């Protein structure tokens, strides 16, 4: 027959939880005094905790970027965007620029006088590759 009385372990855990929660209601002066009693400098505690928080936040930001990059790669794979597509888009872009210098100027004008960066050209090449594929589908 089991008893409904909580075990000593769960009672001690509940006591510890209550004492921990109480810390978040302590006035700052009392908090500093208790930290000093256990040999902790309150200023050091604040500084090292801020550093730990910053470390955790940076790691989380990095993880978020990695996840976004993985999502983008997966999206491109699902669209069938491969190296050959990029190459054909790039080749098409170069033909356009060579055939019609005005188009190249328009691209620069659209970028407010700034030369196209490598990533700008890569983006345009991808879009052109997509258009080529679409055009082939419609034929």
């Amino acid at each position: 027959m089991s008893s409904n009385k909580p075990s000593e372990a769960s009672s001690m855990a509940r006591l510890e939880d209550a004492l921990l929660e109480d810390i978040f209601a302590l006035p700052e002066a009392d908090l500093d005094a208790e930290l000093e009693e256990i040999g902790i400098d309150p200023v050091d505690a604040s500084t090292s905790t801020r550093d730990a928080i910053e470390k955790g936040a940076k790691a989380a930001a990095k993880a978020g970027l990695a996840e976004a990059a993985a999502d983008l790669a997966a999206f491109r794979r699902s669209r069938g965007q491969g190296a050959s597509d990029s190459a054909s888009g790039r080749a098409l872009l170069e033909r356009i620029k060579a055939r019609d210098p005005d188009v190249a100027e328009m691209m620069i004008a659209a970028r407010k006088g700034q030369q196209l960066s490598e990533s700008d050209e890569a983006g345009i090449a991808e879009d052109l590759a997509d258009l080529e594929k679409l055009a082939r589908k419609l034929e």
Partner: protein
Amino acid sequence: MNSVDDDGEGSLLVVATDEPDAQDGLTTEELQTAVRALPSVDLKRLSYAAIIMTRGMALTPDELVNNAVYAALVGRRKCPRDTPVAVFLYGVMRSLASATRKTASNRPIVQFPTVPPGKENPIDCIPDIRLNPEQMLLDREDEEEASRDKASAKAAARKLEEHLSGDFEAQMCIEGMKEGLVGRELRECVGVDQAGLDYAKKRIRRASAKLFPRGWRNVEQ
């Protein structure tokens, strides 16, 4: 989970870590901004809580804070808008510390077999060790761990009582908190006002720090 009692006082409401995604919670960006902007007093509270939670563990207090911030920012659970961010982080720290303890002790979740139909004799329900020796070993380890926790808790409770003998208010406060009493109920149990209660809790924390440098779970008999 403790709740606010009738007269508006009581322990803090610790939420979020045990609840699924909250509709009205901080976005990741908002939470990131908020944790980076925590005032010094909250940083010290988190530090103090982490020191207590990691006693006897291989994890350092700063590692617990670091991991909790990471988990809070990449996890699915959101900080409710009406919960102080420091309290939310404390909840995450608490969950992580508990999970770390379970990992360290390699305590699997043990599933006991149900009674097979027609086998009311309990002897028939004992799993055959020849069929699953690994599970039997894990079951035995789990029982030993539970037994150690029980022994440690008893020893810790006894040490605390001996150390605080003569301090009636602290002892009553301990018993009240073990029962889950908060606010007015706890004050009435101890027979003091709020200032008296706060002082009793301080004496208990001081005693715990002295008696359990490696946490109450590692107290030897």
